[in-house]
């Protein structure tokens, strides 16, 4: 069992998933578990990532041959498979001890997509019906599986996802020859319809015996929505292309999350980065920041990046970069501006924006008050008007740029900078400088001159 677990965790661990989900379910009498909508981290791994779910593959055997995957058919590794009973029992025992918030189940393709899905459904069915498990379940559907089975999995699980794998069709074709863009997007569209409650679109009866009693009358499909994931850094797409794709997926399919996974070379392949290439972690980080701005801060992909400058600024987070390039938008009067406007100020986050809007009717906001409310003045001060600074600070662009430099860049290190191609911004790349200090100094000069003049 120990060895099995190791193989099947190793095969699944590069997948990102978290539970900040929107699933909110009370425990039912005689059952175990509940789901909380805010999400809950149960631990943090040595790599700093939140551990919330038992993230495993049902099997690491696979009939497909995706070039970037350790489980590919042509790779010579031992193959192991959980029985549905083993996996359900393991989930429950981990859950009772409060190790986990639920299960994140994915799988290699065993015999056929449908056969694999049947077994996955069996795991989830055991949990929901036999153990009456009310905790969170996220399952990954198998590309090419029949819609009936996707439906069955979806009424039992909280969230489903289909991985889009790569940001462009061409890359997918080259690296995952057994998968097609169509086989990925079709179920996404189908699931989107089901989630909106469009039962006509499905013409499928949920086999009632497979559902827990409480859900039989009105089965609902994946109430926590669907998500997807793509690998970045393995293929040549720009950040602009990736972000536009994510934005399109959010709009078209109302995805709850798009996850980005920095490619870690596991296999030698002529179309993939060499084995000693480092995963582009800083780039992945910038993508997550930008993704957050799309979902929570009302930004559009086209505001953050453009065809002429299609990649992120490694030195600044995307919001600061935007602010530096848009002096005409500032300064913002904190006493009057709407919440959406406040959210665009560097150093003001959603918590401090909410506090400002709630409290400013009873008080004139000065820098000291803003600071107590959680505003990071080091950044915000250049962009706002406050009671004690009615005309704002007018400082040289360099000073502003220096204050905005993302200190995380030093934690990521020089190596990450070298994985960037900040083309079009005129910024120093890794080849132009001796160390990070010098790189940021140079960047401050360039940004101060060109942007916030």
């Amino acid at each position: 069992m120990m060895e099995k677990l190791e193989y099947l965790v190793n095969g699944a661990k590069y997948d990102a998933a978290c539970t900040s989900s929107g699933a909110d379910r009370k425990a039912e009498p005689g059952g175990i578990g509940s789901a909380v909508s805010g999400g809950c981290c149960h631990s943090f791994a040595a790599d700093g990532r939140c551990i919330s779910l038992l993230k495993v593959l049902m099997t690491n055997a696979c009939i497909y041959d995706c070039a970037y995957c350790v489980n590919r058919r042509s790779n010579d590794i031992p193959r192991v498979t959980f029985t549905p009973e083993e996996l359900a029992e393991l989930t429950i025992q981990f859950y009772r001890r409060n190790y986990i918030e639920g299960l994140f189940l994915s799988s290699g393709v065993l015999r056929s997509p449908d056969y694999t899905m049947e077994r996955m459904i069996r795991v989830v069915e055991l949990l929901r019906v036999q153990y009456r498990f009310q905790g969170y379940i996220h399952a990954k559907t198998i590309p090419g599986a029949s819609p009936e089975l996707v439906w069955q999995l979806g009424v039992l699980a909280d969230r489903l996802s289909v991985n889009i794998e790569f940001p462009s069709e061409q890359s997918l074709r080259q690296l995952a020859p057994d998968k097609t863009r169509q086989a990925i997007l079709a179920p996404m569209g189908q699931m989107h319809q089901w989630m909106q409650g469009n039962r006509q679109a499905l013409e499928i009866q949920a086999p009632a015996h497979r559902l827990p009693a409480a859900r039989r009358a009105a089965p609902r499909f994946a109430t926590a929505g669907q998500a997807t994931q793509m690998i970045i850094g393995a293929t040549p797409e720009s950040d602009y292309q990736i972000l536009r794709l994510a934005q399109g997926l959010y709009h078209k399919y109302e995805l709850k999350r798009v996850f980005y996974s920095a490619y870690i070379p596991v296999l030698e392949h002529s179309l993939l980065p060499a084995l000693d290439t480092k995963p582009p972690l800083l780039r992945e980080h910038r993508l997550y920041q930008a993704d957050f701005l799309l979902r929570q801060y009302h930004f559009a992909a086209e505001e953050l990046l453009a065809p002429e400058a299609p990649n992120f600024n490694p030195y600044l987070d995307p919001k600061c970069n935007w602010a530096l390039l848009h002096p005409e938008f500032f300064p913002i009067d904190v006493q009057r501006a709407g919440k959406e406007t406040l959210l665009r100020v560097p150093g003001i986050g959603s918590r401090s924006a909410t506090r400002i809007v709630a409290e400013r009717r009873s008080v004139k906001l000065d820098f000291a008050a803003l600071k107590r409310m959680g505003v990071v003045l080091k950044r915000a001060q250049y962009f706002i008007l406050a009671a004690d600074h009615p005309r704002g600070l007018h400082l040289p662009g360099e000073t502003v740029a220096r204050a905005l430099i993302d200190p995380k860049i030093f934690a990521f290190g020089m190596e990450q900078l070298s994985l960037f191609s900040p083309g079009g911004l005129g910024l120093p790349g890794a080849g132009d400088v001796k160390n990070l200090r010098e790189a940021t100094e140079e960047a401050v000069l360039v940004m101060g001159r060109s942007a916030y003049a």
Partner: protein
Amino acid sequence: MREPVPRDVVYQYDGSLEGFYCCLFESLRRGELPAALEDAADAQPRLFAPVWIETDPAHALRVQRSIGEKIAPRALHLTETVFLSCLEEKELHLLHFLLRGWREGAGFLRRGWSDPQLALLLKAERHLAHEAHLLTGFVRFSDYDGHLAATITPKNFVLPFLAPHFAARYRGEHFMIFDKTHRAALIHQPGGSRIVAAEHIEFPAVSAEEARYRALWKHFYDTVAIEGRENPRCRMTHMAKRYWENMTELQPEKAPLPMIESGAEPAIL
């Protein structure tokens, strides 16, 4: 209301919320503002003997009502939450807060974080809520013959905030969470939970089955981290070291745990 006059006296009380309300009652009745309020359990040696305030439930109730009605329900909620927090000199801060509330009415509560005095209490409240939230994930139960038990060592008194979460999640189970810092335990049986004082709790020996799940979990934990991406600083910001002592997966490897294989596994490959 007559403004109490600052005096160089220390009130001592039994550490309960009711006792604290009685200190307020006395302060108002005597028209004096004590220099400190202290829980008898952690009394400091002093030159002058502190004034002992007896807990009288009737007085406590009057104060509690007055906070809710004369100031605002939110003021009462904030008071009772901050009272469970680990804010230094919380009693004195609350005393000043409530005197201001009675003087100015509910209006000043709207100033929220922009007001220094309120910000201090709101911060203490948030610190407690945050710790409770973290612990809903970090609590680790062990199974002792069908009963689940866990130990925590929180800074704030979070058990009342953990109770509804775990009671809903494990409603059909028997479980206990022992708060070693505050010497109290949350005890749940199907049908209800309660919090009791508990000086010390002796845990029985760990069964082979329990050891097996611990080992599997630890192995999962070690495996799921992506090698080459170690980030101790990030792990530490999300999960402060002080929580580690009670978390199964972060215990140093002791004697090799018994590994029981589940016998013949159906081979489907």
